[in-house]
C-alpha cells in the first residue's frame, strides 16, 4: 500500500538558521511517528511546512500521492487534522468547537452533544468546560479540547505538536491510549515526552 505521507530530502531554513538539510520520512496507514529533538530545532516548523504555512522549503512533501503546491494545499488542509502547539481563541470553548465545524467542508461532521460529552468524560474534563472562556482554561485542558476537535474531524492523518506536554500522568495515559492505541489512526507528532515517544512506532531525531 502506498504511503499516507511521504517527505523526501526536505531542506528547511528559518531566517539564516538551517533547521534540516536532508530529512526524509514515510508514513503508512496506522503508523505512529514522532520527531524528537531539543527545543528550537524546528519540529513545529516542520509541521507548519506540511500544512503549507512555510512555503520556503526545498524537497518533496506528498500527502496521499499529491505533492504540496498552491493547487493542492486545500487538499492537505482538509485531509490533515492539526493540533498546534499554541493557539489563541477569543471566545468560549464551545465556540472554539463550533467554529471548525462551521466551515463548509466540515459541516457534515458537526458533533452531537452526546459525542462532545462522551469525549469530555473520556478526557476527564469538567462538564462545564464548553461554557468557559477558551483563554481561561489551563494549558492541559486546552490540549484535550483541541484533541477533541482533531479526533472529531475523522481525518486520515493527524499532525500533533506536543500533544501531551502539559498533561498529568493520568491524563497522559488516557490520551496516549486513545490515540496511539487506535490502530486506525495515522499520526505524525512532535514530542519530548518519554511516555508518548516510547509508544510511537517510528522515532525520528530532528
Amino acid at each position, binding site marked *: 500500500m502506498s504511503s499516507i505521507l511521504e517527505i523526501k530530502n526536505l531542506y528547511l531554513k528559518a531566517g539564516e538558521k538551517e533547521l534540516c538539510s536532508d530529512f526524509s520520512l514515510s508514513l503508512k496507514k496506522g503508523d505512529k511517528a514522532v520527531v524528537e529533538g531539543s527545543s528550537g530545532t524546528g519540529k513545529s516548523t516542520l509541521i507548519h511546512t506540511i500544512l*503549507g*504555512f512555510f*512555503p520556503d522549503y526545498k524537497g518533496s512533501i506528498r500527502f496521499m500521492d499529491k505533492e504540496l503546491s498552491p493547487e493542492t494545499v486545500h487538499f492537505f*488542509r482538509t485531509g490533515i487534522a*492539526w493540533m*498546534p502547539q499554541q493557539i489563541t481563541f*477569543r471566545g468560549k470553548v464551545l465556540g472554539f468547537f463550533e467554529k*471548525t465545524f*462551521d466551515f*463548509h467542508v466540515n459541516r457534515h461532521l458537526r458533533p452531537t452533544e452526546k459525542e462532545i460529552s462522551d469525549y469530555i468524560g473520556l478526557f476527564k474534563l469538567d462538564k462545564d468546560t464548553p461554557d468557559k472562556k477558551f483563554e481561561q482554561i489551563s494549558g492541559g485542558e486546552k490540549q484535550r479540547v483541541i484533541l477533541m476537535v482533531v479526533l472529531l474531524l475523522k481525518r486520515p492523518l493527524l499532525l500533533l505538536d506536543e500533544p501531551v506536554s502539559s498533561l498529568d500522568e493520568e491524563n497522559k495515559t488516557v490520551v496516549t491510549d486513545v490515540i496511539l492505541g487506535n490502530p486506525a489512526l495515522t499520526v505524525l507528532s512532535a514530542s519530548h515526552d518519554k511516555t508518548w515517544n516510547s509508544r510511537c512506532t517510528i522515532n525520528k531525531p530532528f
Partner: protein
Amino acid sequence: MNTTADILWIDLLIGQTMLIVPLIIFWYYKTGLILDTLIATVRMSVQLFLVGVYLKYVFEWNNPWINSAWVMIMVIVASLSISDRTKLKHRFFFIPNFIGVFISLLVVDAFLLGYIIQLDNVFDARYYIPITGMILGNSLQNNIISLNTFYKTLKDNLPEYHFALAGGAKKSEALFPYMREALINSFNPTIARMAVIGLIALPGTMTGQIIGGSSPEMAIKYQIMLMIAIFSSSVISVFLSIWVSMKIVFDRYQNLNLGIFREKRKK
C-alpha cells in the same frame, strides 16, 4: 446671500490661536501629536486656500472634464492618506484603497446626483465637487479604522487564522472574523454619531447651508440625503478596499505577507 457675515483675514489668524489649548494637552501627555497637528493645520489651511482660488475658476469654467479630473485628484489623495494613517505600506494598499474609494463614489454619486437630485448635468461643479468632497472626507476615517483593525487583528491572531485554514476553511471563511471585527470597530462610532445628529450635533453641510442663507427645510433634506450617501459609500468603500487588498497581500498558500506592515512611526 450677501447678508452672511464675513470673517476678516486678521480675525481668522487670531482665531487659530485657539489651537494652543489642545497643543498644551498633547504636549503634557507626551502624545507625539504636536508636529502632526501643526502640519495638519497648515496643510488644511493652505489646501483650503488653494481650493478656494481653484474652485472660483472651476465654477466659472464648469467643464465636466476639469471637474472629473479634480475629483480624480481627490480620490488619489484620499487613497494615499488612508494608507498613510494606517501602519500599512502604500505599495500594497494604494490600489485597493483607490478601487474601493473610486467605485463607492461612482455608485453613490450616480444615484444621488443623477437620480435623487436629478441634475441635468451630473458633473455640474456646484453639486458634483462639494458633495463628492463631503462623501470622501467622511469615509476616510472609516477606511483607516477598518483597514487597521482588519490587518492588526489578523496579525495578532495568526495562530487562530492558521488553525482555521488547517481546519479546511476557505480563505473567505478563515478571514470572516476579521472582516466582521473591522466593520464593527469602524462603524459602531459612526452609527452612534448618526443616532444623535440634530440633538447634540448640527452637521457641517447643514450649518453651512443655513449660514449661507438657505431655508432650514431644504438644508435638512440635503443633510439627510448626504448622511445616507456618506454612510453607504463608506461601507461600500471599506468592504471593497479590504476585499481587493485580500487578493494582493496573501501568497498562493493563503499566508499573510508580513511585509505589508510599516515600521513604527518615528516620534
